């Protein structure tokens, strides 16, 4: 556990890099291959990523690729013609009700080879012959919403740049910081939460890793969501390896941060929020706090088809107007089930505020 499933037989000209650890495996040179075939295992991992983000092949070489779904959601893998990754992923988004039947593979000229959509734990072998035309051939998960983050590239007869500068792999792989180490007896699990010193939050911060590689930092000192990111969870070792004189590291990419101070406001008067704890709902904390003598509950859950979260608020028997600072919404997908959004402030009537939801998604 914790180590990407990876196995490869070396052949001349084959050169594979593991994006996660920056590990470089160089082949033996100067020998004629007997079995001139590339064999590569690629696992889908939490956080919308493949564990192998690039590999090399010679023009016309036989390829045997095994896709292993090691994530908790469905994925596929589709090869496209050079430069066509985004076009194919976008075409998949509009498949709508036909999507499932087509394994979310669009009818698009640029599609070369594809696997079916694999449920968690399944695997599939794809065999094909590399194109004769040298080039960089992308592979991508076309399950709706995944393609913007979950991709890699097959280098055919073209030399690879340094991983850190390779624009054909996801940003997280370039940064080499998506990996989650194992810190507990239970291995890896999500949802997972830590109360730990976090950057850009008060000392009473809470970090939560939801399913599908989605994460957030909620501040128990201020009773509000501070920021959201996708990728791995956190690296707690700067805090845990010492006496606490450090901050946990965010593993992934922040895509929303509350830039407005203050928590939800109930009624007219300013009031210090009082944190009262949380109850686990399917392993996810539903926070409970009190503002202006009113009990407020917030449960944050992951969205399934896109990178994003849903904030579900409950204010039972509420009798006062409510306003929620939601911060910047221009760079994300932002939706709300009720109320009026103006200048980063969502205002709701007393009745609307008894139960409402707010969505924050990565893709604009």
């Amino acid at each position, binding site marked *: 556990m914790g180590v990407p499933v990876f196995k490869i037989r070396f052949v001349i000209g084959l050169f594979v890099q593991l994006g996660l650890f920056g590990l470089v495996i160089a082949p033996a040179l100067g020998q004629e291959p007997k079995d001139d075939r590339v064999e590569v295992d690629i696992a889908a991992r939490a956080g919308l990523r493949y564990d192998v983000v690039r590999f090399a092949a010679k023009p016309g070489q036989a390829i045997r690729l095994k896709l292993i779904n090691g994530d908790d959601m469905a994925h596929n893998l589709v090869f496209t013609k050079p430069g066509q990754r985004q076009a194919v992923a976008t075409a998949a988004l509009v498949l709508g009700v036909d999507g499932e039947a087509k394994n979310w593979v669009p009818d698009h000229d640029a599609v070369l080879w594809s696997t079916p959509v694999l449920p968690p734990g399944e695997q599939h072998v794809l065999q094909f012959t590399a194109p004769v035309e040298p080039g960089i051939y992308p592979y991508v998960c076309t399950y709706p919403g995944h393609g913007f983050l979950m991709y890699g590239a097959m280098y055919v007869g073209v030399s690879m740049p340094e991983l850190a500068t390779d624009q054909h792999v996801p940003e997280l792989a370039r940064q080499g910081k998506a990996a989650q180490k194992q*810190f507990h007896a*239970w291995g890896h699990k999500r949802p997972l939460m830590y*109360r730990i010193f976090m950057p850009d*939050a*008060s*000392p009473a911060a809470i970090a939560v890793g939801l399913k599908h590689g989605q994460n957030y930092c909620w501040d128990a000192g201020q009773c509000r969501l501070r920021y959201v990111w996708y990728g791995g969870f956190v690296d707690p070792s700067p805090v845990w390896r010492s006496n*606490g004189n450090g901050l946990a590291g965010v593993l992934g990419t922040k895509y929303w941060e509350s830039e407005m101070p203050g928590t939800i406001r109930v009624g007219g008067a300013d009031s210090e929020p009082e944190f009262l*704890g949380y109850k686990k709902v399917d392993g996810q904390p539903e926070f409970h706090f009190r503002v202006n003598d009113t009990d407020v509950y917030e449960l944050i859950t992951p969205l399934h088809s896109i990178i994003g979260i849903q904030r579900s608020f409950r204010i039972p028997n509420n009798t006062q107007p409510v306003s929620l600072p939601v911060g910047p919404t221009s760079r994300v997908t932002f939706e709300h089930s009720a109320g009026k959004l103006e200048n980063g402030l969502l205002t709701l009537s007393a009745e609307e505020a008894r139960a409402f939801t707010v969505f924050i998604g990565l893709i604009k």
Partner: protein
Amino acid sequence: MRAAGIGDYYSLENIATPKGLDPQVGGLDFMPNGRLVACFHRGEVYTYDPGKGEWRLFADGLQEPLGIVAINDREVVVMQRSELTRITDTDGDGEADQYKTVCDDFGMTGNYHEFAFGPARDARGNLFVGLNLASSGASIRPELRGEFRHYGLSREGFKASSYGRASGRMYGATPYRGWVLKITPEGEMTPFAPGFRSPNGLGFDLDGRLFVTDNQGDWLGTSKLFHVQPGKFYGHPASLAWTNKWKKGRNPLKVASTEFDAKRTRATVLFPHGLMANSPTQPIPDSSGGKFGPFAAQLFVGEMNRARIVRVMLDKVAGEWQGACVPFYDGAGLGKGNHRFVFGKDGSLWVGQTHLAWVGGQGVQRIKWNGETPMEVESMHLTESGFKLTFTKPLAEGAGHHDHFQFTRYYYGYRQGYGSPQLGTDAVQVGGLKLLKGGRTLMIYLDKLTPGYIYQLDMKNIAATDGSPLVNALVCYTLNRLTNGDDKAPHLVEK
């Protein structure tokens, strides 16, 4: 005479912990159903079935939990850095689902040294916790919880690299750092007593008295055990900024130590540094009723820096508690970092260890008495003219020589500086010895008794009538006051 070891009388078992767990123990208790419950460094709470040797995850995600009390088979209360939390398994599946904040009415600067200790629970269910001061080993973080208030520095001042010169070695900058707090079961908090530096150990004795340890450093010449009562001041002045009487902005670093000395309550027992304990932890009374050996109702205190558990023998003198400390368990398989303790129903003592990147250890051990009585000092009482020493077994013939009992006295200075050397060291002549009827109690007459000194007794060649040698031959008695109530000790203060 063969060397005696505590391992001749007690057996020690290492308890395997789950693979993959960082087994630094923050707290130990027993649920009524007989399951051990323990909290660990990375925020997990596990229960353990001693019969089956099986661990089971109960809760997780806590912030450096350093104390746990089991309320019932489904509920525990845990002190974590940020709050006291009631954790409940409401659906009975063995894993907690509800985490209720009992009390977070205190500040945090994010400084690493702001550990939070406890809770210790009194007979009425009130919970007592201790809040560490911050350390000048680090500054404060950009965001705080609670009001900022510091006697020497602004928040801006804490950003300067020279902050440590004005902050104080250990400092408080948010409410109630350096305090012991009392919290009712409903969560009502009352600041209970100020004056602590690093109170990593709170416990009630069997008579309901609260004892708290504190760690050698600034204002603590050596480590201490205090009998803590409401409103009294226990010596480290950084916490006084959060008392009503303290003038806002007054800098305790610039106040004469004589002023604090006049206000402070002295330690019940001092642990000589380097000799007895460098970093004392939880005090726990022997509640085994004799199943753990001949020390029923006495206090044991953990020690981080060596493989030792210390024993305390209290002595009420002129209405106040003072007393002596003696090593109890030394080596014999015990780890370092002895942090948290709980007695099992069978009278065995469970030990949890930690280090938090200082000297210490990790893991869980269990100590059982084998039924043989070790030869030990059972109690030590001050008399008008010396000490009354009672042993667990009658003394062998020939033990009554003066040169078997050597006394030295010294004190530790009360000062802003870090720790204190032993001062005023002087040998004290034994003027006479008298063995009382039964052979277990020895009256020792000393030439001079002066308040404010530790009287260190080193014993040599002592054995019981059954031939068993004395196991622990070092006893240190903290003489705060004489039997006539005289407690004048002006020499303690470095002005």
